[in-house]
């Protein structure tokens, strides 16, 4: 750049255009590729966010999102003061904490055990079998639960009757049994799948370390404790913390399918309640549903950001 030789307007514009072309022109095809996904992203992910205002309005379908009158925090107040508030909050937290604790250790035990097995065929077989349930749809899983735990015709009922000679109590409509059925069927379904991530962590153990330990006379069990376990521990911590960030997210699908009128005291959670007050057969209150949904989303967001900050501090493994 030689001093301030005044360039004509045209020359400057031409230079700017050339620079612009160099920066974007070469890559125009890449932008063209991105066009469709970005349009999709705005329509299906960001456009609904304008609908969040429903939570602060008295939404009438006829008047639409923008035309309905504002009511401030009235919908939130209605939720916080209703008797359902503590119930759904408590149930959501209870179910997710319970599944967090119950589903955490077993995949680790499975991975550690699989890693010990020396017969490749046996290892393959166990893996093959334990991954299967992951591919079964939630409807079929719930269908299986309802069939097998039916107190009259299910396996549970017939075994109970065979052992005690009495009709089995109906546990499917017992509120106190709901969390156990929900959580343990989930553990059954995901234990194998959950072990994959730990197995991949274990494959990173340097075989030389095992050799050295054998030379030092360490038993296999000892090697699991001092070599394998410390290897999966960081992964395990991260999984635990990440799941903790999802503590307010209990999927709608399975809970809704397992609900019946008799177990609602333990099975009504935030997402099913949102559905019922708004879109369900007896619902219709869109504003209340949107408010509860927003309340849940914001808490989730805060939790995940918190968790991310914690993992970042712990060892740089951030979610993004």
């Amino acid at each position, binding site marked *: 750049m030689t001093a301030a030789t005044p360039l004509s307007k045209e020359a400057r514009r031409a230079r700017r255009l050339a620079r612009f072309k160099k920066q974007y022109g070469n890559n125009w095809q890449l932008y063209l590729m991105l066009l469709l996904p970005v349009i999709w992203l705005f329509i299906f992910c960001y456009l609904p966010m304008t609908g969040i205002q429903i939570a602060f309005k008295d939404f009438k379908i006829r008047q639409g999102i923008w035309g309905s009158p504002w009511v401030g925090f009235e919908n939130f107040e209605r939720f916080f003061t209703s008797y359902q508030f503590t119930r759904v909050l408590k149930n959501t937290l209870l179910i997710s904490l319970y599944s967090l604790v119950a589903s955490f250790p077993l995949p680790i035990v499975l991975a550690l055990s699989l890693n010990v097995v020396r017969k490749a065929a046996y290892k393959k077989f166990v893996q093959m079998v334990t991954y299967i349930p992951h591919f079964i749809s939630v409807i*079929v899983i719930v269908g299986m639960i309802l069939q097998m735990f039916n107190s*009259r015709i299910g396996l549970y009922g017939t075994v109970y009757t065979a052992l005690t000679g009495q009709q089995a109590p109906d546990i499917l409509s017992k509120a106190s049994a709901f969390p156990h059925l929900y959580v343990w069927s989930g553990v059954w379904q995901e234990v194998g799948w959950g072990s994959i991530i730990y197995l*991949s962590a274990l494959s990173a153990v340097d075989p030389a370390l095992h050799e050295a330990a*054998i030379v030092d006379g360490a*038993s296999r069990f000892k090697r699991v404790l001092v070599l394998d376990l410390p290897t999966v521990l960081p992964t395990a911590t991260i999984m635990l913390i990440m799941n903790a960030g999802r503590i307010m997210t209990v999927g709608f699908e399975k809970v809704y399918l397992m609900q019946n009128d008799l177990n609602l005291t333990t099975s009504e959670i935030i997402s099913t309640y*949102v559905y019922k007050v708004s879109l369900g057969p007896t619902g219709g209150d869109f504003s209340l549903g949107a408010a509860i949904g927003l309340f849940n989303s914001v808490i989730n967001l805060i939790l995940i950001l918190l968790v991310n900050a914690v993992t970042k501090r712990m060892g740089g493994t951030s*979610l993004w």
Partner: protein
Amino acid sequence: MTKAVIHKTKVKDPLDDRIFYIVVYVILGLLTLITLYPLIYIVSASFSDPFSVLAGKVVFFPVGFSLEGYNRIFSNDRVLTGFINSIFYTTAGTAVNIVMTVLAAYPLSRKELKGGSVVMVLFTFTMIFNAGMIPNYVLMKDLHLLDTRWVMILPAAISAYNMIIARTFFSANIPRELLEAAQMDGCSDFKFLLSIVIPLSKAILAVLVMFYATVHWNSYFNAFLYLSSDELYPLQIILRDILITAQTAASDTSDAESALEIQGLAESMKYSLMIVSTIPMMCIYPFAQKYFTQGVMIGSIKG
């Protein structure tokens, strides 16, 4: 590999090791058995005489072999329509998923793309914040997508998580030199994507196909919220009606005798329905096992 060699050089395991191995094999055996038993029970029940199932005679093997349940399924119009719809949603939906995901992931994997990081942030944000059930429903309504086949395909066209997996794969596995050489020869970005990137990325494409296809086949949430016509319903909704809604209705009946009577026939269908609806997943399972684990591992190494 090395581990096996180490062990072969040893003549015999010491006693404590042998005990430990036995304990491990027992733990694994138990886990396998617990996983397998309900599956075997369902399969056996589906091939058994419905009244033997109701009487609790089926414990492990089929009792009074019968294909009645399967007969009833294949003569049930709702099940057949649902099956065909599900196949359509799964294939069409997965095709759209793959095209859209690659179109997003590839450009975003190129470092020289200005503004790419902004798009990444926008995608990532959708993973941690959702507008919620109601705003989404109102949008589908405003877009006139309710109760159309589109609503099963468009809203779920890209999963941000899968897109990020693909992007990680592209940036790690497509060498920069390859792009430069191709550009030297005047290869355009579209041509490069189609004739070089795609053939080199079969592994990740297989992972994506399977991730997306299982979700399409197994999910019922979108159909449940957005569809209302029988002829559009995917199989999972029909399954819900037969397996779950009917079930609760029957257990509400106080008269045990008549309930048993009604159930007898319906029951024969339920187990075979579970089998038939899960078979497509089990068909892709052998491939899935190989690629899914790979996918999970790519997913765990974030870019």
